[in-house]
């Protein structure tokens, strides 16, 4: 093949090792622009990722053992007694390993004093324990406050509210995953709920200084499966809010829920 013909009109023939004059430089410039351009684009997109919040496992503390009173409804919570600087009983949400809740039989465990061991997850005021094994019952007579009644304070009604926000799974939100909100994470959040992890509502506004709520149905029980259609979306929910210890529980009237 003659160089004359090959070079004509910049006609490129892939199997020929000789490039038409000028084309080599064009392709080199193109390659440099593309490699440089996409690298900058990757950097820009990565630099602009959303803030996933500050939730994380408390790796530094390692496994801890806590003693408190267990409640199973709407979802398992371990109540720690008030302490200096903490005037109310402190509710620690419970989960199992991975995307599983703690299997608790309310008939035998509700209101009992138990000991639970596991890793803590924390995001702001929210605390969750990833329980290793099962919580072990302790003799109720040695309860730190002398009886579970005082520990799990009577629910205080805070009225009926309409709130805008997002339903998340309590474990990812507390720090098991970053980010843990948004539609991309939806399937994961739903798998957590299927596994029995407590759902939480993160509202745009705050009630009594908190914008984080443990969720229940309007009668204070576990939410039905249908709630999964509302997870990870901007939703408007309505229902009664009540305070138990330092946790706010949002008893949602799902019939009135709206996707925004």
């Amino acid at each position, binding site marked *: 093949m003659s160089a004359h013909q090959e070079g004509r009109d910049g006609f490129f*023939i892939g199997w020929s090792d000789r490039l038409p004059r000028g084309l080599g430089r064009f392709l080199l410039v193109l390659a440099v622009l593309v490699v440089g351009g996409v690298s900058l684009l*990757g950097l820009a997109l990565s630099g602009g990722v959303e803030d996933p919040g500050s939730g994380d496992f408390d790796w530094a503390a390692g496994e801890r053992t806590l003693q408190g009173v267990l409640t199973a409804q709407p979802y398992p919570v371990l109540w720690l007694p008030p302490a200096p600087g903490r005037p109310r009983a402190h509710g620690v949400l419970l989960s199992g390993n991975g995307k599983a809740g703690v299997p608790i039989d309310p008939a035998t465990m509700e209101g009992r004093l138990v000991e639970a061991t596991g890793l803590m997850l924390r995001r702001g005021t929210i605390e969750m324990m990833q329980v290793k094994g099962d919580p072990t019952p302790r003799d109720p007579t040695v309860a730190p406050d002398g009886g579970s009644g005082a520990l799990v304070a009577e629910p205080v009604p805070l009225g009926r509210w309409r709130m805008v926000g997002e339903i998340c799974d309590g474990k990812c939100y507390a720090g098991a995953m970053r980010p843990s909100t948004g539609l991309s994470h939806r399937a994961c959040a739903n798998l957590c709920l299927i596994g029995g992890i407590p759902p939480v509502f993160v509202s745009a506004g705050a009630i009594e200084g908190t914008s984080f709520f443990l969720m229940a149905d309007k009668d204070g029980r576990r939410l039905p499966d249908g709630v999964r259609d509302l997870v990870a979306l901007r939703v408007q929910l309505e229902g009664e809010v009540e305070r138990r210890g330092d946790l706010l529980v949002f008893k949602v009237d799902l019939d009135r829920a709206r996707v925004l």
Partner: protein
Amino acid sequence: MSASHKPVGWNRTKVLYDAALLAAVAGYILAYLWVGPLIQRTSLPLDEQTLAMKAYGSCAFLMLTLVLCVGPLARLDRRFLPVLYNRRHFGVITFAVAAAHALHVLGWYFAYSHLPQTEALLAADTSYGQLRGFPFIPFGIAALLVLAVLAATSHDFWLSFLTPPVWKALHMGVYAAYALVVMHTALGALQSATNPALAVVVALSVALVGGLHVAAGARERDGAVARAAEVEPGWMATTTVDAIPEDGAVVVHLPDGEPVAVFRHGGRLSAVTNLCAHQNGPLGEGRVVDGCITCPWHGFQYRLEDGCAPPPFTERIATYRLKLDGRRVLLDPRPNAPGTRVEPVPVPGAAA
């Protein structure tokens, strides 16, 4: 002619091509995963897995965008033809990047559950009755399956097994994959994006792919393309002798849509199908090199007088009969069997 006898396996062009391609992929992914976190303004870093999902997912989207731009770009500016030359490797690497995205999603969002992953895929998101929150993952799975089929059939074995027209039609599925990926992104990542950067990138990408296809289509309409019309029984008027560049062609569309390339070389005219026997490449956009029609896509060659590839190659394409009516070129629209010899028609007054 010796150069054309090289088997088309690995060659320097392909090695350089793949090197540039892999450098671009590595540049993007490393910038996203390693450099990006240095400038992210977040309370705590994102999970590595989530960041990887974002990096590989957006990379696959951009690669699909670019691979779809290559065809029209090469039409609009011949200097992009080398990018088209090894487009199949581009496609296979795109599939690999998309698969990396899917594996990261499976290994994070769909792992650690008591449900097996396949069951979890079906159970985790079933909100088909609503627009906001309509499941976006099935679109991604469908796109990945299409890309998998295209990658698996990209080898020349499948090309000859399926025949070029079927193979080409199958590989048009890349447009379906792109549409699915756009839906996957629009219903998924864009819904939870907290800044508009990704939406801007997706919108610009779709506009670029669409715009380039429209521009290339327009160029094809007013370019070296003619429509044939019957002027005497069995003969159709196509173009004029003077419209055909030396060593180039004018593409003629027959009434049934069949494209024919009328070439001029050494003062003589020959007509062959415009569809290359390799991957249906547009022969009329090629050149005559060493007395052979040379396909612009991968350089397959055919002799002007009989449409046969020079030995040792065996590809053949259909030829057509031509005659002149003054300066008008008349064509018999019935194709000859591939490889049929047709004596080239001398152009009066042209130097051979």
